[in-house]
């Protein structure tokens, strides 16, 4: 699995951090998304896909 984020599209809702805290974080200065792991291990794949589904700005793209 490969994860890409679009920081320009991000609206800082925090849904991804709740869904997959080991994969996503938010910057302290503007609340925008930070990708912690570009290729999440198998046990984080489901949570990562859920985060992509939840994102209100569709700023997370998952390639498998």
């Amino acid at each position, binding site marked *: 699995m490969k994860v890409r984020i679009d920081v320009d599209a991000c*609206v*800082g*809702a*925090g*849904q991804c*951090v*709740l*869904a997959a*805290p080991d994969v996503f*974080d*938010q*910057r*302290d*200065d*503007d*609340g*925008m998304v930070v990708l912690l792991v570009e290729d999440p291990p198998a046990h984080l794949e489901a949570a990562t896909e*859920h985060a992509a*589904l*939840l994102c*209100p*700005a*569709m700023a997370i793209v998952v390639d498998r």
Partner: protein
Amino acid sequence: MSETKVGTRSELGSFPTERDPRCPFDPPTEYVELRAQEGTASLACPVGVDARVVSRYDDVRAMLTNPHLSSHAAPSTHVVAGGVLDRPVAPGSLLNMDGPGHARLRRLLTPEFTVKRIQAMRPYIRGLVDDHLDALLARTGPVDLVADFALPIPSLVICELLGVDYADRDRFQEQTAVLVGTNSDPAALEQANLEVVGFMTQLVLTKLETPTDDLLGRLIVRARETGQELSVEELVTLGITLLIAGHETTANMIGLSTLALLRQPDQLAALRADPELAGTAVDEMLRYLSIVHFGVLRQATGDLTIGDEEIKAGEWLVAVLSAGNRDESVFPDADRIDLKREATAHLAFGYGIHQCLGQQLARVELQEVFARLHQRIPTLRLAVPFEDIEFKDNALVYGVRALPVTWDGEDA
């Protein structure tokens, strides 16, 4: 605009706002039919225009992420008879802004609402919930859970967030309760409105002079440091927006969800037995109750497609969040409360660039309330017959006007 419509006009005719009084937690029954119809029905709205009523989950998400739909009219204006659809958007009016102007303001505010920052407020919120429960338990029931619990807690959280002086919080809380209350008479309402705007203006002026370590103070510094200085008008509008958005919604969720859970003893017993369940329970109750119950209004700024339907520039659309949240294709057995359901993909906070900025705060407040209220008062029950509870059918945010409750003496 009627000549540009390509969809079929629904037999339903007008935008459904009436609930079945026997099912006060369910959206109007017409939504079931609307979801099942092909395309999107065009319905007459109380404000005096026709709007495409978008009711399926996928269509609501598609609509709220479409960049060719403007939020310039206030979110629920379609149900307001005599409402104004073309009012100029006030500077700082986050809910009504589009595009880069909206993105600039939202980005200045998002660091205040990150998961991390809100989690750091959890101990404060838990303390506040416990203090209010102590005060309730020091009395003998019945008490009104809305006036004495649901309203003050979110109000005091907003005070903490905005950096309101402790000495001013009681007065601030009293006046905001009048402002968001539905039992207030017009004169009291106007007085409270003037007072809250005056109060917010004074708060903003104080923070501009000496920015302290709170939301408003940090916002002012952040805007200055990034060369995007905010005017007094913008700051006051933002402050009032945060106050109203964070107060009325959370308060209504506390009252309404407590009532709904009291009516579902098996679910309530599960929550009482395992307070950890509050995590999923909050999102499930947000989904089930969808308190922004008339949905949100948008206007097409260009031709676009939702589902298979063509929408022409100028047309009005309503995303009916409550209908999408009961869409069986996404939430099986959608009309049932299941506190274990993974419901975070619900639409109660909206979707797209306007999705609720304060959602993490709302979640933490509601989680603490759900976990603590039923732990501390396990015999909590209605003090009046269910039929006597008055629902806010006509208010833009749904809830109960009052919730008289009582408990057994040994809970204290």
